[in-house]
């Protein structure tokens, strides 16, 4: 049976792992390759690397990191952060990334999603959506959640699936960093409506939150960062718990 995926996210700045609460405060959580290997050995199903300082001149550093991860890690991984062109994607996939994740670039230039899906296949195109609720409506935000757009989250997710996105990484900015649980209603609405997998992100604080996002939230995968980095929850015990609760996971 297909299992629900647990995905630690490693935010990368200058080649080191960091995780900010609501993307503002940054704390050092170590060497990305070592951490990636550790997570892989603990039973993480995939990894996401988000380069939060990615700029054109830093691209080379990221490609080097991707090469190192591809050489040493035996599970799939996605790379995101500042990706805005076919050339960016080509260099990361050629270095050994399994998937890339785009966010602001897709909002600025939606046809990039079609182009990437056509060039490289939908299976390696993850589109991240940062969503924030205002007056009861979920709006797409960009630039680490700071900038509002005129797009509503549910309609945008549908458009992305139609354009050929392979997976959607849905982050609720209202929940991110709160450790109060995932955005269950929004995740379930999007996952139930679309034919592609949804990775839920933002708000993980307890093992129960993961169970909720896989059951009532209908997520295919759940992503978290700081709770894993600071060992508040360890992946083996999380998987044992989920399995005992009837959620199918890889053990």
């Amino acid at each position, binding site marked *: *049976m*297909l*299992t629900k*995926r647990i995905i630690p996210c490693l935010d990368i700045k200058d080649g080191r792992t960091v995780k900010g609460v609501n993307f503002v405060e940054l704390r050092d959580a170590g060497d990305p390759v070592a951490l990636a290997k550790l997570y*892989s050995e603990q039973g993480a*199903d995939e990894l996401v690397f988000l380069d939060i300082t990615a700029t054109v001149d830093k691209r080379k550093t990221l490609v080097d990191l991707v090469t190192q991860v*591809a*050489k040493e890690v*035996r*599970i*799939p991984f996605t790379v995101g952060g500042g990706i805005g062109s076919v050339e960016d994607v080509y260099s990361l*996939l*050629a*270095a*050994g*990334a*399994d998937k890339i994740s785009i966010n602001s670039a897709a909002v600025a230039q939606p046809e990039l999603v079609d182009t990437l899906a056509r060039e*490289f*296949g*939908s*299976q*390696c195109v993850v589109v991240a959506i940062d969503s924030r609720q205002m007056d009861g409506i979920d709006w797409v935000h960009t630039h680490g959640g700071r900038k509002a757009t005129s797009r509503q989250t549910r309609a945008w997710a549908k458009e992305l699936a139609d354009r050929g996105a*392979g*997976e959607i990484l849905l982050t609720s900015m209202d929940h991110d960093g709160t450790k109060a649980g995932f955005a269950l209603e929004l995740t379930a609405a999007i996952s139930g409506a*679309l*034919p*592609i*997998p949804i990775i839920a992100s933002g708000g993980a604080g307890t093992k129960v939150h993961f169970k909720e996002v896989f059951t009532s939230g209908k997520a*295919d*995968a759940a992503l978290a960062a700081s709770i894993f980095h600071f060992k508040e929850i360890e992946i083996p015990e999380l998987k044992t718990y989920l399995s005992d609760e009837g959620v199918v996971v*890889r*053990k």
Partner: protein
Amino acid sequence: MKVALIKYNAGNVQSVRYALERLGADTELTDDPEIIRSADRVIFPGQGEASSAMAYLKERKLDHVIREIKQPFLGVCLGLQLLCTHTEENNTTCLGVFPVKVKRFIPSVRGQEKVPHVGWNSLENLVNNPLLKDLPDSKFMYYVHSYFAELGEHTLATTSYIQDFTAILHRDNFWAIQAHPEKSSVFGEKLLENFLALPSSLPHLY
């Protein structure tokens, strides 16, 4: 040990290469028939689209080269599908090493299962075979695909998603795996290690 990876513009060949290098193999990504014929092992990796992959192979006459390989040969993912007779992906005639058809997943009536099939799924109904020797107990592999090979006499293991499909195939010197062993942690690594450890001289198809 020299392993030729057949080059046909498929995506993420690098991961397969790194996985083999972790096991101590020398790899070469090539579409040169001579290098392919003289390698100790041949791997047909890949992701991509079937009709353009077949066109690339035919242009270089690699379709003949592949069928006539005498060493242990391993198809991975799209590589498995191209070794079958036909795929529904753009109605493409394939290499025909395995008398098996490749079909597209049709989402179930319940609407629970999405297509593509992405993620970790388990291997079932394993047949005794040198490729499947001494595997870890936890038999999960990482899948990313929209098309699947039907069950048949050459099926070595199955996986269930929407329906049971062929996870691994074997015929003479040809093996093929639908999932990605290079991305399937210690389990996938053991499969690749077993492939490298196969006897070099096997009954061959042609």
